[in-house]
């Protein structure tokens, strides 16, 4: 029997199977859009028309819709799960949904549209490979569309879809779609978004969400679901310089394993092989990999995103928080960090504030030295020296850390280029950080 070239033989993996038995992969994606653009309806429609909603869930929606006097089931009720959300008819917090088709498995981060929940869109986008931004065909590209597109660009989400919704309310006119698609694409491309796909839809009527529309013969592209099923996934970080943040030291101290000392972690980039010369940061000690265990099984090599345990030839001092890298491709160590940040806490971030910075598995003390600018998301202009950032602000920050950190630029690595700031007093997550200046595109548009 031949083994597909992509299968890891050592784990004995047989691959995942969908409900129809085919091998599948996973796409993590996020939704964004203004309030009342029909985001919950789109999500409900995707779940419903891909037959991912089961009978008892649909019955619950029908029961509640009928008790409110609606003639048709309100698909938004499938996703708004909290009491307050149902009461107010809005989405408050990110929810994660799961569905699968024969071709792919999907993790959907369903994010709220309100301006005051911009941080939740940042949360959803941080792990997404694709963002669907909804636009109301009657209103076109509005401030919130620009804000969400800018966030997708800053977070370097590889694929952006603009779904022009409510086409049924503009007579399914091609010219309306073409104008919005053109304006959006020009704006997103200017921000450095690498790929934009525009799709005319009606989430309420089901046009071009799962089934092709009978009302828009002029549109020859994919439906939303077809696009989600076929967009290429995985940025292949295996070809980048290898990075292993050490999470935990495994020392059994048993009769069977008296001298075992393994460094456990999840590979975030690159390939590690037995025999590779590696450096442990921040100490800078150099040694070789003498063994790699993949969850109990010895292997010759390991890749992202495998959780592994690495054994080293020399008895160097390694502990949680260290980063193991190839000696020939080590990042520079620095205590002065320049980053683009999104402030996610209610209390502001101010110049002079003392914080904790978590990067990979390492948490260090840091101080906010300067806040050079704040981005005005409406027109992408930069407001100089705002003094502080409040909830949902995006800005530039300069930090000084108590210990040197091995930082990559976020543009090179979403994993080793990102960090969070934490309030040392109460543990609140304050700020999402991306190492480096504003994305090149955003700066170019920053006027």
């Amino acid at each position, binding site marked *: 029997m031949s083994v597909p070239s992509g299968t890891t033989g050592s784990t004995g993996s047989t691959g995942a199977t969908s409900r129809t038995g085919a091998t599948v992969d996973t796409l993590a994606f996020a939704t964004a859009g203004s309030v009342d653009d029909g985001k919950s309806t789109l999500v409900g429609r995707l779940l419903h028309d891909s037959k991912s909603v089961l009978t008892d*869930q649909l019955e619950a929606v029908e029961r509640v819709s009928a008790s409110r006097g609606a003639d048709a089931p309100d698909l938004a009720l499938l996703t708004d799960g909290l009491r307050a959300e149902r009461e107010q008819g809005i989405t408050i917090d990110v929810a994660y949904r799961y569905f699968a088709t024969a071709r792919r498995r999907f993790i959907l981060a369903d994010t709220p549209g309100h301006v005051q929940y911009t941080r939740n869109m940042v949360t959803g986008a941080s792990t997404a490979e694709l963002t669907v931004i909804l636009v109301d065909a009657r209103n076109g590209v509005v401030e919130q569309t620009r804000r969400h597109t800018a966030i997708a660009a800053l977070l370097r989400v590889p694929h952006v879809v603009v779904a022009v919704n409510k086409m049924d309310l503009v007579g399914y006119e091609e010219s309306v779609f073409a104008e919005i698609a053109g304006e959006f694409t020009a704006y997103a491309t200017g921000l450095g978004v690498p790929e934009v796909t525009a799709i005319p839809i009606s989430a309420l009527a089901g046009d071009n969400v799962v089934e092709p529309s009978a009302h828009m013969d002029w549109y020859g592209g994919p439906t939303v679901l077809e696009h989600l099923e076929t967009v290429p996934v995985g940025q292949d970080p295996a070809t980048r310089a290898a990075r292993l943040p050490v999470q935990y030291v495994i020392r059994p101290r048993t009769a069977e394993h008296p001298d075992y000392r393994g460094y456990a972690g999840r590979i975030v980039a690159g*390939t590690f092989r037995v025999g590779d010369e590696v450096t442990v940061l921040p100490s800078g000690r150099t040694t070789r990999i003498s063994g790699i265990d993949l969850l109990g099984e010895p292997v010759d090599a390991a890749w992202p995103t495998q959780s592994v345990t690495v054994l080293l030839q020399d008895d160097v001092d390694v502990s949680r928080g260290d980063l193991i890298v190839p000696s020939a491709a080590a990042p520079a160590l620095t205590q002065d960090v320049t980053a683009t940040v999104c402030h996610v806490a209610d209390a502001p971030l101010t110049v002079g504030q003392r914080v904790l910075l978590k990067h990979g598995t390492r948490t260090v003390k840091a101080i906010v030295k300067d806040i050079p600018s704040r981005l005005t998301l409406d027109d992408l202009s930069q407001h100089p020296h705002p003094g502080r950032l409040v909830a949902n602000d995006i800005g530039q920050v300069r930090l000084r850390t108590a210990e040197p950190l091995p930082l990559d630029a976020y543009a090179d690595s979403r994993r080793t280029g990102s960090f969070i700031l934490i309030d040392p007093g109460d543990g609140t997550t304050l700020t999402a950080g991306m190492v480096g200046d504003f994305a090149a595109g955003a700066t170019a548009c920053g006027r």
Partner: protein
Amino acid sequence: MTTVASTTAGLPTDGAPHLSHLDVLESEAVHIFREVAGEFENPVLLFSGGKDSIVMLHLALKAFAPAAIPFSLLHVDTGHNFPEVLEYRDRVVARHGLRLHVASVQDYIDRGVLRERPDGTRNPLQTLPLTEKIQSERFDAVFGGGRRDEEKARAKERVFSLRDEFSQWDPRRQRPELWQLYNGRHAPGEHVRVFPLSNWTELDVWQYIAREDIELPGIYFAHEREVFRRAGMWLTAGEWGGPKAGETVETRLVRYRTVGDMSCTGAVDSDATTLDAVITEIAASRLTERGATRADDKMSEAAMEDRKREGYF
């Protein structure tokens, strides 16, 4: 500047091998276990003998191999548990040399602290023994097998979910969870609920059990059992309080999709006696796991949210 020349030499031209989605889920769960072991003083793993907690234990064993799991287990015993499940629990604990804590609902009832509900279900009664055990043993991280696909309120859960000193969940004050940077900071008395299976679905759990050949209690597979009908579900007859007058016991071929308290967990008609047959059955089912077998979730539209707010897992 960084260069990649030395590390890419010898790489296959098509890059890294493809990891199946089960490989990715496994790797993510292991990462979460190790983060907790690295950041917390006194974690504990909720273990009910149900399939989700059995998968969690299997993942934890792999995460720290060849060393032992660096934390203990906690079972909330409702007093209405299936004997097959308790037997399985004790066997697994003994085999791996684990330490098991038990929080007993029956003790609370016997002491008069909790009162039996008129409907006989003990599921909502688990919250107090659980939260008091967490406080008295000073557990600072509690692993639960909750999956976001189970229920609308669970879809909103974080992987690391802070609970206050009363073990309460406030969905409006959750920490944003960015990239894979989990924030485990907490004040004394607070703890963090941790959900390594957040991104798994019911089908993923069963496919993983099949791939790893994990042993389960027999009640997950079709067997003949004395059951009676209540609120549209087949409940096991037993000393816990069923059947009542007017409810008739019959012997049927059934299996369990979830394992909880006997008073509120229903069996489903099934002839699936093997893992493959179970997977085929679940893939074809038009009912969710909890919709098919859990009476307590049907109490109100926000039943799960309300119980989670109070400290339920």
